[in-house]
């Protein structure tokens, strides 16, 4: 099981270590540092690194490496999932998961880690239970604790720990009973130069914020449940009921949680709500290039496309750009060659465009890399897959809760491969003729 955990910051210092079995010397991390040096980018450090006596399994989040040390055969996914859970918990407790936050709360961090693993076996990882065992630090509580001498460690056995609904604590009371559900979808797509979609997939999640008194039993049904053929549920969802009736039936945890995540693959046609018209040309023998980019909405069911951000990595040969946005602002970093254009909202009547010229390095050969365009945007009140909640009912409690459902579509990673006008082979031929 998990032997030890080391937290390593971006500059390669170990700033926290925790051992659940015998102490493993921190020199074991040297193998990690070696791999880190070899990797060109911070995110390229391989997640599983063998050393003569241990295995190092790491995740990188918030620019901190969480390096777990294991000694025997342990499913690596188990370790990785656990590490992500640790990060989520820290974030939940301290608001942010940074080196400073961890150092400031080092004792709470230690108490948390101790509660989460016992001898390398996960013990309590549900945030509901952890919060009963160890109260999150708040300014108010710290003050109260100092005055009254009370502690932030719970005295009672967490009630949920052993019940059939371990994710929910008992005795929850609210004056305003409310349940909100956010359906958030992210599109990942790769589009080729001609504008046709190579791959497109939707990652959807339903996040919930449930503040209901007592032990409510909820059911959530959809207008079109057939869309959901690839789903991962929170443990609270009764799987049999879903299989039989396609209804989500569950006793919710208290507070914020992810009810389900789903995946709509490219088999079901995914329409991308934005199109891009682009044109980039370099003329032979000239140190100037033309740049032309126009955006437009597509199949958005009348909803506005907002917070649009376009970024593109221009070829290394581009020295600078002189572009004119019809709206929003653009920046070009001559060092990293990254062009970003903060468009804002797309007005279907007046499509946003970015036009102008680029200056190239004099005498340099024409760039042969493929720039890609990355687009980010948001559409409120629409789930692009078409998923719609039919109704939400509550059983088991008498009061009438306030219910709300929000939809949102975001761009995850939409990449448009943006080819130069002449294909690379033609270019080399031309290039050769010069000599």
């Amino acid at each position, binding site marked *: *099981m998990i032997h030890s955990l080391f937290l390593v910051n971006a500059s390669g210092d170990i700033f926290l270590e925790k051992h659940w079995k015998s102490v493993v010397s921190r020199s074991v991390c040297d193998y990690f540092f070696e791999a880190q040096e070899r990797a060109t980018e911070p995110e390229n450090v391989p997640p599983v690194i063998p050393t003569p006596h241990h295995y190092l399994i790491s995740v990188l989040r918030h620019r901190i490496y969480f390096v777990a040390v294991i000694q025997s055969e342990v499913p690596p996914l188990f370790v990785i999932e656990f590490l992500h859970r640790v990060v989520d918990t820290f974030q939940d407790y301290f608001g942010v998961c940074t080196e400073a936050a961890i150092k400031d709360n080092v004792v709470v961090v230690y108490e948390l880690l101790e509660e989460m693993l016992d001898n390398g076996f996960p013990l309590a990882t549900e945030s509901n239970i952890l919060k009963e065992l160890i109260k999150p630090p708040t300014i108010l509580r710290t003050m109260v604790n100092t005055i009254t001498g009370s502690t932030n460690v719970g005295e009672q056995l967490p009630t949920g720990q052993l019940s059939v609904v371990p994710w929910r604590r008992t005795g929850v009371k609210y004056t305003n009973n409310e349940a909100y559900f956010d359906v958030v979808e992210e599109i990942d797509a790769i589009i080729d130069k001609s504008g046709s979609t190579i791959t497109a997939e939707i990652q959807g999640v339903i996040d919930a914020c449930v503040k209901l008194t007592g032990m409510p039993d909820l059911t959530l049904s959809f207008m079109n449940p057939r869309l959901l053929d690839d789903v991962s549920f929170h443990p609270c969802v009764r799987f049999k009921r879903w299989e039989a009736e396609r209804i989500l039936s569950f006793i919710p945890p208290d507070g914020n949680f992810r009810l389900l995540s789903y995946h709509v693959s490219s088999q079901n046609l995914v329409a991308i709500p934005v199109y891009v018209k682009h044109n980039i040309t370099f003329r032979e023998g000239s140190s100037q290039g033309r740049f032309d980019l126009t955006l437009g909405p597509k199949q958005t069911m009348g909803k506005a496309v907002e917070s649009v951000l376009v970024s593109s990595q221009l070829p290394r040969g581009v020295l600078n750009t002189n572009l004119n946005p019809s709206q929003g602002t653009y920046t070009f970093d001559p060092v990293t060659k990254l062009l970003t254009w903060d468009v804002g909202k797309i007005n279907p009547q007046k499509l946003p465009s970015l036009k102008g010229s680029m200056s190239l390095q004099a005498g340099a050969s024409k760039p042969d890399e493929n720039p890609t365009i990355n687009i980010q945007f948001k559409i409120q009140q629409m789930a692009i897959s078409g998923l719609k909640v039919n109704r939400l009912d509550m059983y088991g409690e008498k009061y009438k809760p306030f219910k709300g459902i929000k939809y949102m579509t975001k761009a995850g*990673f939409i990449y448009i491969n943006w080819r130069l006008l002449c294909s690379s082979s033609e270019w080399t031929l031309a290039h050769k003729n010069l000599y």
Partner: protein
Amino acid sequence: MTDSKYFTTTKKGEIFELKAELNSDKKEKKKEAVKKVIASMTVGKDVSALFPDVVNCMQTDNLELKKLVYLYLMNYAKSQPDMAIMAVNTFVKDCEDPNPLIRALAVRTMGCIRVDKITEYLCEPLRKCLKDEDPYVRKTAAVCVAKLHDINAQLVEDQGFLDTLKDLISDSNPMVVANAVAALSEIAESHPNSNLLDLNPQSINKLLTALNECTEWGQIFILDCLANYTPRDDRESQSICERVTPRLSHANSAVVLSAVKVLMKFMEMLPKDLDYYGTLLKKLAPPLVTLLSAEPELQYVALRNINLIVQKRPEILKHEMKVFFVKYNDPIYVKLEKLDIMIRLASQANIAQVLAELKEYATEVDVDFVRKAVRAIGRCAIKVEQSAERCVSTLLDLIQTKVNYVVQEAIVVIKDIFRKYPNKYESVIATLCENLDSLDEPEARAAMIWIVGEYAERIDNADELLESFLEGFHDESTQVQLQLLTAIVKLFLKKPTETQELVQQVLSLATQDSDNPDLRDRGYIYWRLLSTDPVAAKEVVLAEKPLISEETDLIEPTLLEELICHIGTLASVYHKPPSAFVEGSRGVQHKRLPARAGSGESAESPDTVSTGGVSEAPPAVIPSQGDLLGDLLNLDLTPPTTTGPPPPTSSMQMGAMDLLGGGLDSLLGGDIGGSPAMGASFGAPPAVMPGSFNAPVSGGLSDLFDLGGGVGMPMGAYVPPKTVWLPAMKAKGLEISGTFARRSGVVQMEMTLTNKAMSVMGDFAIQFNRNSFGLAPAGPLQVLTPFTPNQSIEVTLPLNTVGPVMKMEPLNNLQVAVKNNIDVFYFSCQYPISMLFVEDGKMERQVFLATWKDIPNDNESQFQIKDCHLNSDAASNKLQGSNIFTIAKRTVDGQDMLYQSMKLTNGIWILAELKVQAGNPNYTISLKCRAPEVAQSVFQSYEAVLKN
């Protein structure tokens, strides 16, 4: 505080200050001080000096303070064992606390204190907690057993905790069940033969019930445990699958992958025409695809596993090609894995898309990725015949980019395409030749030279091209030199008139100026061929070559099967069997997929497709079979129903052999090996006689035969002196020392048993763990009884090599279990590999030459034998005694070259070249073998034989 603290070093001052605060009367101050101590501990400062002061704070009713002190204790108890005893009382008291949280906390902390002295005090509280009324305490106690086992395994067994733990599998609370399973799995890992997780349909049912209700982590443990079960029939298998399938929708990816493992394994038992089989296949795809939208680290592990799944059952993901397309922002380790899977999934249906993608990747920035993408295009051409033409034109496009590493990579794969589709794409050769000058990597140069040689008749200036390489012949790497030699010989055979000078030049370069034996030998062979019979040479050199096969990179089927059983583990990430790399798991069980009901071995499964491509596997060194019943060191620990190896049959035939072998050798042993085996052959048999009847008869007879046969034998095999294998301290007074010998073709284990205990011993038995060469006892261990204290006896145990095979590290390692009336003892020893050299290990000269050439150079290893003062004839004689046969001897410049061969019991040939220089005590030996793993052991044997 006075100003004095400014005069001390900060560190000392800090400790000093903390000490004062810890001893303060105010609770609040105490707590703050403990917190400070913990904080220093977390950043790696040594605060162990505060141990007594912190422990003093332990008896408190403040839960947080208690927890903090416990945290401290766990960290430092080991360095302060005497002090740690002070804490025991509090633990015992806390285990009786009315609050279950405190009881659990105490039992949890107790187990983390790794101090031998303390553990004994903890057994009683632990026993109580295991039976606690509160499930929270029980589940914590279950884990504590695993902790304790890690510290003192014997204690846990003696105290019967393992049985209690097994009972907890039937606990009413699912979390307790899950933790019990987790604890047992961990214990079982360090204890592979204990049958701790004895699964039967009833326990399986309990696990499946608990599976639905326990936490996600518990589900992983239970699923991994289920995967070790073998259902009785396909019905049971189906019902388990049905109950496991819902786990595929779990949010935790580790649960999903463990469920996939169970399903992949049990699916193997379902008849393929069953509707449910098809349903299951369909259900497996979506969760695997979902894993690819998780964090990159998860994706990486998922992809490594998908790589296995795709090889085993390509049908699952055949429509999902697109999800493996590389994303711009994927980390490089994800990109490379995706590429691999794309090729595996490439088929006629999707090849156009795949090629378009691959071409895209070939223009990316990362060099490793680009190279792999180019290689992938070549692999597509070989895999999907219809696409070959498009692939070739894509590669040509890439060559036109003139990006150096792209060009080189492309040429290497085009060579492979030529080998797969000869006489089809030669039109591109002209383009390739244009790039000759830019090639600077050996592999690309060698590929290009091969192409020029192979198609010399179509390339007008082939001779010029090859000549240009010849200039820097000695600076080239071996593979380029070899290719160049062959290519020029081919050229000569095709255009003999113009190239005579060239071929003479290369032959003299290869044979006279090179010190690489391979190059030299190949040069001589060509030379001889060309000078004696050019027609034959043509037939040999220009013979039609076998086509290269589609998938050269598939994992070998038996390994694949084993890896499928280990989906989700480290083994699956490294694509190596767990035995190959997991430390501390001596004798890992080899898992194997269950056989499909009715169909025997699944002949139609895709794993049989790949026979052609996989390069000849070395025979039998790598285990080709394994069974679920596990290892055999289970003499006493399991009920007699479980199977060990079946010795009775072999012991019969061994008995017969023993007539000639056994006794005789122990007689000879006296003067050859200098071992005191003499006593054994005289002393033992008569004493055994009355005990049992059939076996000893042969022993007695053999002694009669010995006397006649023992005279006038040639110099015998080398027998290493006896060494102590099992010291008396470790085996409750039984000491075993021994050695191995090969006598008259029979391998023997010769042991001296000494009873250093106070009591009489008896009921001896012996078993071996699986080993590299399948060594197994050929008969029972005969020890005369009563074996009284302070007595020593010699025992000779004949061995055979028909036992189960498993590769050991080192190769000649043998793990042995010896049982007597007191206990079972385990030890391991190493045998000289020379005792496995068989008597008919002399190769024909011609065969030797051909084989030497045939074995790739990578398999050659060189060693130095130092300080050996024998001349070559004496050495040859000495080696012959150990079945190392000299086939030829050549003397060059006062240096004797002995060419030798030997054969192992499992049919592996080893060829050797021994260089002996008069007056130089250092010999050089080159070994060539198809199974290069054996080289090290063979070399050791050489050294041992020559020096004794």
